[in-house]
């Protein structure tokens, strides 16, 4: 890959240099070159300093600020009140975690077979399929979610289609003997937990498929052949070889789906209605909404970060030492 081009100028310089007395030159070089290479290395390191400063200012300090706000009151004194105030919101925490877990599980159940199927296609088909997975990400994420609103609404496309093929008439006819029964005209699809999970799965499914696929295609085909030669059935090959080797992709897929799912406020607001609040909505309200209270918001954010860090470190424990046989 690397290509060197010698320009006439540099060649000329080399010639000049080599005409100096050799012994002296070498002695100088033996002292000077290590110093020089140390200086060069130091100079190259310094290229990172502007960004190190940038990170300190715009990554580290903001996170420290969250910590400071979480432990102070509006008057400025130290307090733990923000955390004791959170107990009111335990149901919201529970709901967020639950919905994010369900969405992550569904993404895994859908995403793994798809990733496996894609990685079994030939190279050209793989490229097209991967491109097709990434293409929807280019449509604004709010609009994709909004498009689901038009599908899921009470008078939306799905309910209209079901009505057109007579599903509701059929259900109503089944209950015609029951006097207490009120005929239905639609299924309640939007503003439910199911709709929120659907929105999460829809938006974050590519984040599950892509990392898993990228790990599976890198598995050395000889490892699989060896397993087959040693008499493993295709199920055993999958269970004992392919799946364990793809764990690192699974883990990054799970994190990439779980983190945005547990923190979203857009999906719950668009598809979950105003009553079904998630952690993201709670935080957003403390910073942008009528209930302006950045101290409480920071405390909630801090706890959310802690949950994510704990989840991730547990996950990483599972995936340790599974990557040796993957051809990089």
């Amino acid at each position, binding site marked *: 890959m690397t290509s060197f081009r010698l320009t006439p100028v540099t060649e000329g310089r080399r010639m000049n240099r080599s005409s100096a007395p050799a012994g002296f030159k070498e002695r100088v070089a033996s002292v000077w070159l290590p110093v020089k290479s140390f200086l060069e290395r130091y100079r190259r390191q310094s290229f990172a300093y502007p960004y190190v400063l940038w990170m300190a200012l715009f990554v580290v300090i903001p996170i420290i600020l969250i910590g400071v706000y979480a432990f102070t009151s509006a008057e400025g004194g130290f307090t733990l009140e923000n955390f004791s105030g959170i107990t009111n919101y335990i149901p919201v925490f529970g709901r967020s975690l639950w919905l994010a877990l369900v969405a992550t599980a569904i993404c895994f159940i859908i995403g793994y077979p798809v990733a496996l199927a894609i990685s079994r296609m030939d190279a050209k088909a793989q490229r097209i399929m991967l491109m097709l997975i990434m293409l929807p990400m280019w449509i604004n*994420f709010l609009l994709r979610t909004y498009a689901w609103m038009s599908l899921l609404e009470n008078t939306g496309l799905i309910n209209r289609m079901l009505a057109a093929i007579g599903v509701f008439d059929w259900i109503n006819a089944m209950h015609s003997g029951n006097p207490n029964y009120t005929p239905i005209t639609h299924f309640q699809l939007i503003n439910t937990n199911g709709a929120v999970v659907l929105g999460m799965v829809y938006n974050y499914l590519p984040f599950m498929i892509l990392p898993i696929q990228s790990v599976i295609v890198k598995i050395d085909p000889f490892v699989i052949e060896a397993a087959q030669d040693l008499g493993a059935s295709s199920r055993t090959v999958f269970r004992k070889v392919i799946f364990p080797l793809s764990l690192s992709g699974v883990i990054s897929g799970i994190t990439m789906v779980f983190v945005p799912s547990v923190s979203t406020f857009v999906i719950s607001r668009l598809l979950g209605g105003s009553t079904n609040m998630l952690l993201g909505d709670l935080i957003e309200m403390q910073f942008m909404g009528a209930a302006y209270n950045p101290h409480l918001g920071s405390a909630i954010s801090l706890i959310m970060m802690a949950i994510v860090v704990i989840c991730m470190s547990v996950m990483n424990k599972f995936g340790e030492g599974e990557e040796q046989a993957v051809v990089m």
Partner: protein
Amino acid sequence: MTKKNTAGNIFTALTYIFLYAPIVVLIVFSFNSTKSRTVWSGFTLNWYKELFSDSLIMSSLQTTLMVSVLASLIAAVIGTFAAIGFYSMKKQWRAPFLTVNNIPVINADIITGVSLSLLFVSAGLFMGFELGFGTLLIAHISFDIPYVILSVMPKLYQLDRNLFEAAQDLGCTWFQTIYKVVIPEIMPGIINGLLIAFTMSVDDFVISYFTAGSSVETLSMAIYAMTRRRISPKINAISTLLFAVVLILLIIVNVREARQQKANIKKQKMLKGSN
């Protein structure tokens, strides 16, 4: 691995239908002659015409493009230099820096947004500025740089460790070494990082929402404000246009790459033949 796998392929096809169904709905209803987004009442191109005279959409599109272009370019420059710097460091220094670098990638968007807004609001109180285009741009650069670094670093590791010294032995100054030797070698990584950063910036809503203040509005923010009332089909029209542009670009890039690959294979065959 190339066994026929019908069930898997059918399942994959269904998943793709699921991924594209709402997009098809979105595109189809951008041609609908009434404002309804569920009842089809005839074909029209009016929304596309009206789009270009809608000052709100046009100005927010302009903000989005300006922020994304500026942020991704600045991030590409800072990120490339930072990556070269990290690469030259000893591991015990590099590792913690790269961990901090990963924070905005792994962290939830809402936390990045909220933490930056805390910083900007409190710094603004001290120094007398308000949230606006400047803070929006800084926020975008901050979450763009990690993607540049993550795509440049692997390219640096592929370099020959002696390349720097070789270039200098051949008479390059340190600046020439970077500019004439290293940068061209890692260019694919830089371009890739730039594109990812640009995509991230265009698609971002959450971080912009917390850091832009009330005076500036990106396209995503305009759309979010509209979802509370009713989204005009003009928005469907503009996203159809953006989608079409991306699709065409992707097709061109892929066709070109495929051709190049074919040409390369041909060349290799010819070389083998001549030996």
